């Protein structure tokens, strides 16, 4: 194994190793006022930047909220028209369905009114009642429409 070719003995450097650094080293103490002062300064700077960014981000959110509120009457108007059409369709459907039943009156249970509605207020029906004359999956699709997208 050993050969005289590229063999060199590993030796200490010329002049020997340096002295061993064994003395205890105490770092220079920082003033307490400096520590607290820098903490407060950094925190304040971060807080200012954060508030600035938050104001900008809230402005963006507020603008989107504005846009949603601004177009809401458009959607609402169209939705009311669709709703009234559905109410009318339901009444026509009921008239067609119950025409062979003797003694049946529309909107009542054999002549007895279902609701106490002497002031002619609008009745907001439940989803089951609105979709009573449709297939079961129509009401299912309507109720879980949000899951589609």
């Amino acid at each position: 194994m050993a050969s005289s070719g590229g063999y060199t003995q590993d030796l200490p450097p010329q002049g020997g190793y340096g002295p061993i650094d064994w003395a205890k080293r105490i770092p220079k103490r920082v003033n307490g006022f400096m520590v607290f002062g820098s903490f407060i300064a950094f925190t304040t700077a971060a807080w200012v930047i954060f508030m600035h960014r938050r104001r900008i981000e809230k402005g963006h959110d507020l603008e989107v909220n504005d846009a949603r509120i601004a177009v809401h009457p458009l959607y609402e108007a169209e939705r009311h028209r669709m709703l009234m059409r559905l109410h009318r369709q339901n009444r026509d459907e009921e008239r067609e369905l119950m025409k062979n039943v003797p003694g049946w009156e529309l909107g009542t249970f054999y002549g007895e009114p279902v609701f106490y509605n002497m002031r002619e207020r609008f009745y907001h029906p439940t989803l089951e009642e609105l979709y009573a004359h449709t297939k079961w999956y129509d009401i299912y699709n309507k109720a879980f429409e949000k899951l589609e997208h």
Partner: protein
Amino acid sequence: MPWKETDYLPSYEELTVPELTLTTPVMRAGALHFGKYCDNQCKEFMLCYYETMDPRKCLNEGKEVTRCGFEFFGKVKKHCADEFTKFHECIDFSSRDLIFKPCKKQQKIFDVCMREKVGIERPPVGYFSLTRVHHTERPKHTLPKIPLPDPIPDPPSVEGRIPKHKYWPKRGLFS
């Protein structure tokens, strides 16, 4: 359903008006200027609905809102079609929730066009989120009065019929 034959429901002819067939990004892009342009109609409609809570009584106001929407988007199409298209395409393709943040550049161009050609200034941020006061000539909606039943007669007097408790304080809060 609770509707009798005598109850009023609007007919199909009353309910059939041309509807705005626009997608959400387009609505979102034009929303702020639309709200400013049709401020009066929108407020009238929403006030009517929240007073009556009855869609049957606010159909005309709703039709007015839709007509105003047609008028507004027609103006946009006539004068600022290019800028508006760029703006709503940016809104459509930049984010999932259709925010204005990535499209401030296009919005600025669109604003300038709307101000110079149509004459609508975009309201400051927060204008629609604040409470807005509306003055209307329409009389306030009140429900018709119905005859109330006779009031319940007053209970007989209990003076002298309740025995005084022996250890109850003579004076004080619960005397």
